[in-house]
Structure formats: structure tokens, C-alpha cells
């Protein structure tokens, strides 16, 4: 029986820039940050109130994909193809205003939906996330 999700991968274009975005802009905490292999770096972050859930910030360039697949993936990430996750918050209007102030790009402002209030933003690579305050 599956009980929990502990890790998920987000492909990013630049790991250092993603580190800055997820920690300084979104306010996530670094869980593991260790050099691996020749020039690899294992970097995971967690939402502040969910330390047991690690988001692996995985650079497309360092992935073990073929050049062709990596190039395609890079373009798809850049174009905002991938919707990764829903993040929740205590107060969506305050969170939205704060993230906007920090330079986070939103493609949907907080909007009332039947399940709560939702906004959509992109990370620095192009991946998109829902920000929600659930009813």
C-alpha cells in the first residue's frame, strides 16, 4: 500500500538560479545540497511546512538524457509546458502580493473557483504551479 510521496523532480534550466528562486523568492528550505559525481549537485528543497516532501531541482543539462532528448526537454520547459504542482497557503492575496513584489511572474491572478481561490505562476525556468487557498 502506498502511503506517502517523498520526492518529486522538477527539471530546471539553471540549478543555481533555481536555488535562488525556490529559496529566496518562494521561501522554501534546502533539505539536501551535496556535490555528486564529476560536476553534479544533488539539490532538494521543501515547502516550509512540509519538510518531508523534497523537490529535486534537477538541471536538464546534467541529466543522463541523450542530447536530443535534453534539447527537446529544455525547449518544452522554457515554453511553460509542464504544470508541476499545487501549493497551498494560508492567505492567497498576501502570498500573491508578496511573490509579485519579489518578481515572481503570474499568469493568473487570484481567482475564485468552486474549490477555493487560485492563482498560477511560473518558476524561473518556465514550469508552472498553482497557488491555492482551499475553501
Amino acid at each position, binding site marked *: 500500500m502506498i502511503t506517502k510521496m517523498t520526492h518529486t523532480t522538477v527539471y530546471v534550466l539553471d540549478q543555481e538560479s533555481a536555488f535562488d528562486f525556490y529559496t529566496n523568492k518562494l521561501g522554501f528550505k534546502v533539505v539536501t545540497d*551535496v556535490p555528486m*559525481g564529476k560536476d*553534479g549537485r*544533488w539539490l532538494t528543497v521543501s515547502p516550509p511546512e512540509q519538510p518531508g516532501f523534497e523537490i529535486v531541482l534537477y538541471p536538464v543539462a546534467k541529466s543522463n538524457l541523450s542530447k536530443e532528448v535534453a534539447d527537446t526537454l529544455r525547449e518544452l520547459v522554457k515554453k511553460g509546458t509542464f504544470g508541476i504542482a499545487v501549493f497551498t497557503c494560508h492567505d492567497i492575496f*498576501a502570498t500573491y502580493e508578496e511573490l509579485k513584489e519579489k518578481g515572481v511572474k503570474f499568469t493568473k491572478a487570484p481567482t475564485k473557483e468552486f474549490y477555493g481561490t487560485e492563482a498560477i505562476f511560473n518558476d524561473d525556468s518556465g514550469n508552472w504551479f498553482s497557488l491555492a487557498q482551499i475553501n
Partner: protein
Amino acid sequence: MEGPQYPKMYLYRRLVQAKLFIDTHYAEPIDLDNIADEACFSKFHFIKQFKNIYNKTPHQYLISVRIQKAKELLNAGTPVSTVCLAVGFESLGSFSVLFRRIAGMTPSSYVALQQRLRAQMAESPLTFIPGCFAEKNGWLKKSQF
């Protein structure tokens, strides 16, 4: 994209500005009355609204930011007495008491714990990485089994 229109938008913006002010100026002797004035609120109303959004009073929030920054500086190897002043506390005593209350351990125990963790990460990084990821990246040593 046009900004949204929602009830009390101006109020949210002022509260967010106050929060960001604390995030930036936590190391200075912040007068929370001044922040309330800047945000054009009465002190009582400001504290109530701030707590509604952040689940902490502005003072509690300021302390939590200072302790969080203190952890970062301690992690970077800064001595406890330097950290205390660098994050805006005037006495080592009050810093240690608040650190212990929030972090659940003394600053020196925190430093020791972080050092152990770092040593463990440096010595055996693979214990922090799920095996499937390590294998896919070729970070695992070949095994006979």
C-alpha cells in the same frame, strides 16, 4: 497581466510591505509602532490584521526571522556571540533563551548538530539520495547483486 481587484487590496499591500520591511531590516532595532504608522494603521488594528495573515504578531514574526537568520549564520560557521548581534539581539542571554524556545535547542547544540549532519553528508552523500536517482545518474558503485 493586469493586477487583480479584490476586497481590501490596499490593506493587503500595506501588510505585505510591513512584512517585507521586517524581512529586510530584522537586524536593526525595529520599532513596530513605526511600522504600524508607515502602514497607516492604528497599532491595535495593525497587529490584529498582521496576525490574521501570518499567524504571528509582528513582534513574534520579527523574532522568528531573527532566529531563522541566526541559524543560517551559525550554519555558515559564524561564532554565536557575533550571530547574536548580527541578527539584532542586544544580549547573548535573551538570544540564547529565544533561540532555545524556537529551535528547541541551544545555539551551540544547533551548531554541533549541523556539523554532524554536514560531516555525514560529505562522508556518505548517497545516504541522502534515493537509490533509484543515484543509480540513474551512475553515482552508485557497481554491485554483484
